[in-house]
């Protein structure tokens, strides 16, 4: 480089690029979901705006930007206005640690996965702020349920994400991805028994952490209308939607990285990020497929499922992974 750049400049630039790419991805992932869900329901999704609906997300974004921003008179203004931002920031921050190709990431921290899991569960703060600040019984009820649910499902989420960590021996996301390179069967999803079980529990925990059906008691349109977002309109609503889908994509990227081998795939090295993207879309579609196939279950049943079934199962899985790792490295 002709000019000596301070070390934080490349990071800022890459962060900026990643943020923009994520926002673009979020908008088109919504279109993908709508089309996919429509086909599963014997109908066509967005079709008229642009060829085959390709301009639909842009139309939606424009509409949300131009909408009137209605603030309820009795709402707690500061909390109400801050909540979408507090909700959005952790959802964007998780992309900092994901490496999109070997060496291509914003910050491949040594504690990458810990950072991811910790920051992603901070969205609950923004969520509760939104529910409280709206001064609305529906929003409050939904925020209470949200706290319940996300706290209950964070532990199984962490434990199932820790299984690949144990199998790799490092918290660094770049290392976990690197271990899965080479052949198809290096992918952790193909690890006998443990890999598949961990993948299934990861998907279930992701569904719950994302408030997706069958765990979407949080929004439950037929009961609570829109849950914690019921009083938001216009750009604030857009920010909340952005945060939700960004979190969804982030978790899909994490799942693809932890279990599906990140950028491994046939073809030249440069094709790596493309494979990563495709795997992320696959994870997202699996979650969407489940979402559109089931009715939701009640909040006490969700909590029962988590504490009585999923948490013991993931704990047992983690312990057995540890035993297997020690046994394979000849520790016994």
């Amino acid at each position, binding site marked *: 480089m002709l000019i000596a750049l301070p070390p934080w400049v490349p990071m800022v630039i890459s962060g900026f690029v990643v943020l923009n790419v994520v926002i673009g991805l979020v908008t088109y992932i919504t279109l993908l979901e709508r089309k*996919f869900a*429509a*086909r*599963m*329901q*014997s*109908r*066509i999704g967005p079709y008229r705006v642009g060829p085959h609906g390709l301009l639909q997300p842009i139309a939606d974004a424009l509409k949300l930007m131009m909408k009137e921003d209605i603030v309820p008179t009795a709402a707690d203004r500061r909390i109400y206005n801050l909540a979408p931002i507090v909700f959005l920031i952790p959802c964007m921050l998780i992309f900092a640690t994901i490496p999109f190709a070997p060496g291509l990431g914003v910050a491949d921290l040594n504690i990458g996965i810990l950072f991811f899991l910790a920051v992603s569960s901070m969205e609950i703060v923004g969520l509760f702020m939104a529910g409280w600040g709206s001064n609305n019984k529906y929003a409050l009820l939904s925020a209470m349920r949200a706290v319940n649910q996300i706290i209950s499902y964070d532990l199984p989420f962490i434990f199932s994400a820790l299984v690949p960590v144990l199998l790799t021996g490092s918290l660094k996301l770049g290392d976990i991805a690197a271990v899965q390179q080479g052949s198809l069967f290096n992918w952790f999803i193909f690890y006998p028994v443990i890999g598949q079980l961990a993948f299934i529990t990861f998907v279930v925990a992701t569904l719950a952490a994302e408030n997706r059906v069958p765990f979407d008691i949080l929004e439950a349109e037929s009961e609570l209308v829109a849950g914690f977002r019921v009083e938001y309109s216009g750009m604030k609503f857009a920010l909340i939607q952005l945060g939700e889908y960004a979190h969804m994509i982030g978790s899909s990227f994490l799942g693809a990285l932890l279990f599906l081998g990140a950028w491994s795939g046939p073809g030249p090295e440069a094709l790596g990020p493309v494979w990563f993207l495709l795997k992320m879309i696959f994870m997202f579609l699996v979650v969407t*497929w*489940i979402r*559109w*196939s*089931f009715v939701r*279950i009640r909040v*006490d*049943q969700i909590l*029962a*499922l988590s504490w*009585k*079934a999923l948490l013991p199962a993931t704990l047992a899985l983690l312990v057995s992974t540890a035993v297997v790792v020690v046994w394979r490295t000849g520790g016994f």
Partner: protein
Amino acid sequence: MASNGLSRAQSGTGIITITGAVLRAMGATLKNLFRKPITVHYPDKPRQYPSRYRGLLALTYDKETGEENCIGCRLCEYVCPPAVIKVEMLKAEKRNYAKTFSLELYACEFCELCVQVCPTDAIIMMKSFDLSTSDRRELLLDKDRLHAIGLQHEPSWATGNLLRDMQTPPKAPAPAHAKPAAAAPATTETTA
């Protein structure tokens, strides 16, 4: 407990049933993913309307003489449940006419009772409902508009005489003004 149906998940066999059920439900949606959607691309592609479709209302002319069929008898006005038809009779030497005939389509129930009672098959329904406007006043159809609709769209099968013959089939040979089709109404229409 009866209220927590998830207690079945605790047992081993419960897990297998649940997994089977989950996979079956997901399989059903996956199967539909690959079926052709049943959407009809209206308005790019027209929908097939059955022959008895109750669409827009229209006034008709006589096929042979070109005269208006309506004799202003006001039977349709009296039978209409929401009373949307208003007719004024014009007396003339050979037969009567309708001086004004207005139909408020925005309040019409499309019940076909007016078609049923009309003695001269003057008012009929069309196989199309395509008259959306952004101004409701355009749906207050006057006589000219009604005649124009009758010429623009395809008429549906039902006319007053055909409907009445369906309810009490004529014992005598079909009267002169009803076409030969009236004697065997089923053959002129398809079920499509």
